[in-house]
């Protein structure tokens, strides 16, 4: 633990120590403590189970789906014009959709598309948002006149985005790009950018006034280094939690966009939102066609929300015993 002799080395070593969070220090580390509390939280467990099940289904869907999801194998048996629908039966556990396709296969493969859209959209929103917010937060923390100006520019732009409802942004983007799965991912992702940006910047500002930053400053660590190895890592927690919560929103918004017709242009490729939109026309004759995707969307969103909430609570220092 010897501190070096010359001043520069000493400062560097101090900076590392102050930035260190885990390891041999007394008391449990933040991560370990968090996990410990997550394990004991029923909310976290149920959320994790739902999310796990959803991930599992999405991954194995193409191998376990009993039929090709786009094949109209029983096309002549379902007659939407006469209100004849085929409900659950031996060969089709969830019944048939309005064009005689196996509803179970469509639900399974649909999970895959919904997950893909949710994850990619969230990653996109997270990356872009964190970059904008990070730059703004860093600029303020560096604390020069140009830093504050840069921050102001970025944040006013973010405020503008915030002022427009997320779904409206998404619909506008979808209208420009034309309907496709990529459009939905980009649209939903971009709509999440302001949330991530604001959250990260806010969190960085809060950290920059904390004691350890003051300590590091007092020790003579330079500002850029403080921002890089102290403020930024410590500010990421809430943003990661937000990402979990956003996954739920993204799945719902993706469903909404598909529902509005901005999703995959090939209606034979199933996703839950589009299935819901389709089934709406047959609510009178076959309400169950709408129930399956609706319930699936609700449960999945619930799973991610529960997990996210539980993570937020266990990460919150104020709730620590």
């Amino acid at each position: 633990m010897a501190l070096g002799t010359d001043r520069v080395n000493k400062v560097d070593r101090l900076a590392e120590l102050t930035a260190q969070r885990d390891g041999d220090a007394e008391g449990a580390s933040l991560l370990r403590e968090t996990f410990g509390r997550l394990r004991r939280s029923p909310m976290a467990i149920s959320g994790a189970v739902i999310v796990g099940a959803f991930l599992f289904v999405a991954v194995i869907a193409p191998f376990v789906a009993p039929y090709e999801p786009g094949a109209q194998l029983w096309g002549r048996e379902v007659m939407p014009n006469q209100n004849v629908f085929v409900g659950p039966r031996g060969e089709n556990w969830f019944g048939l959709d309005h064009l005689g396709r196996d509803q179970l296969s469509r639900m399974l493969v649909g999970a895959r598309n919904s997950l893909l859209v949710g994850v990619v959209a969230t990653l996109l929103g997270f990356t872009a948002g964190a970059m904008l917010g990070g730059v703004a937060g860093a600029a303020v923390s560096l604390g020069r006149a140009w830093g504050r100006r840069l921050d102001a520019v970025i944040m006013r732009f973010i405020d503008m985005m915030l002022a427009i409802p997320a779904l409206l942004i998404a619909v506008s983007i979808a209208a420009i790009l034309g309907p496709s799965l990529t459009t939905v991912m980009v649209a939903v992702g971009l709509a999440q950018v302001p949330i991530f940006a604001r959250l990260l910047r806010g969190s960085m500002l809060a950290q920059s006034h904390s004691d350890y930053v003051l300590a590091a400053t007092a020790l003579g660590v330079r500002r850029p280094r403080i921002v890089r190895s102290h403020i930024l890592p410590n500010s990421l927690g809430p943003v990661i939690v937000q990402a979990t919560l956003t996954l739920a929103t993204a799945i719902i918004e993706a469903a909404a966009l598909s529902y509005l017709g901005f999703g995959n242009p090939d209606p034979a490729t199933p996703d839950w939102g589009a299935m819901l939109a389709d089934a709406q026309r047959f609510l009178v004759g076959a309400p169950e066609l709408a129930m399956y995707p609706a319930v699936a969307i609700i449960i999945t969103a619930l799973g991610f929300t529960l997990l996210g909430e539980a993570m937020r609570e266990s990460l919150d220092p104020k709730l620590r015993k």
Partner: protein
Amino acid sequence: MLQSRVTRLGRTALIGIVGALAVSLAGCESERDTGDGDRNETEPFVFGVPTDARTLDPIFTTDGETFRVTRQIYDTLLDHEPGGKEIVGGLAEDWESSDDGLEWTFQLREGVTFHDGEELDGEAVCANFDRWHNFEGAYQDTNFTYYWQNMFGGFAENEEGVDTEEKFRSCTADGLTVTIEVAEPSASYPGAFSMATFAILSPGSLEQIEDDEITSADSAFPDYTQGEGVLAGTGPYQISGWDHGSQEITLERFDDYWGDNAKVKTLIFKTISEETARRQALEAGDIHGYDLAAPGDVEPLKENGFQVPTRDVFNILYLAFQQETTPEFADLEVRQAMAHAVDRQRIVDTILPEGGEVASQFMPPTVDGWSEDVTTYDYDPELAEEMISDAGVDGLTVDFCYVTDTSRPYMPAVRDIFEIISSDLEEVGLSIDPKPMEWDQYIPATNSGQCSLYLLGWTGDFNEGYNFLGTWFDRPSDEWGFENDEIFDLMSEIDRTPDPEERAGKLAEANEVIMDFLPGLPISSSPPAIAFAPDVEPMDVSPLTQEVFADVSFAEE
């Protein structure tokens, strides 16, 4: 005539008796303030339509929803029998043409009054024809005068770039006799005189209209066409107001109408664009009827006591094979393979409303000129697959355009039909690239040949085979992308044959030639479903979707 006078006397007497009864009843039950007065007088009849009318001056449009409204306000020289497709007199009681089909003489009814009080005479009719014939500038754009150019050709002085040949020569009036001369005979006469777009406006309204408000091809419709005040016709209803905010057009009964007066005093056309929303509005009692019900809603509506009368079929839905965009389609074997690949019977059985049928040619069987001897293409996926691989186009990727935001009378549930066809085609070895589009983009895209495959259709304007075949095949076009002089020559020959029977023979021949050439695949004819509340006495429904709203009324309790 005599009979109708007796009925009218009878009506007057009946109205008198009902009036007296009403007065005496009112006397007895004066404390009941709701009173069960005649609903037809007190309550507006509200009809739900899928899209707003565009203009109340119908010469400017080709749009069925506009005509649904203007048909109640104006009359045309000729008309169709209510609920049928035979041509009967409208403003003209009698009409005849010269043997060469160049001179059409109309004998107008006596005692016809316009809503603004003017009397109908030959001068008034000719004033309308002369106005259309003398349109200038942007008025000559097909956006505004498509039907005029299609039926009566060019204008007195064609602007630069307008190369439509002049077919209309002159209109001469002599008292109640009107003579219209045309340059060449056409299969479109006399049908054209029955088209809602050629509605007769009162001379008074014509004076107030200044034909200089449309200045470019994309101008908005002039103000006078968007509300009450200027326009007067001779129909059973007159314009009372158009609320553009709530998308409601209100019409009031015109009491001096020349025929039987409208049964309901106030008629409202209310736009509700969504099929489901229209059904819900009917179920909730907000509207009393609506058109283009989703086929899937018909059975549930009937079960709940709503009336869904069936129309006769008078339309065609087809799948077009664009041969220029996709050169592979120029191979007849490929087109035949696609025809064998599509299970049209399934579309009719599972998607289309009751009464739909598979089409064997590009016109419904009720039209003169329909042929029994056309080549038919049965559903045979194995054969289709073989033909596709014989032609060496296995795995060929083709663009297939479909509409996302609307349904048309000939194609309800467009996307379901699209999905069935595209799955059938993929089954036999083609690869489909779906291109979803909104209606506004769809029409220009299909007209300019951007889609290899697309679904479109046609509802006949009047009972004439040429109105179907001529619409598509009278010239080379980007819609189809083929050159076939045999078909084009046959079409222009048919157009110039004035005798209906001779024409029907040639139309039958044309149908056979076309179905051998197979420019596209006729899918089906189907009746668009119209629905009414249980307490309504509907009018006769029309295969041309030209319902007469003057005949609709609330049922007596």
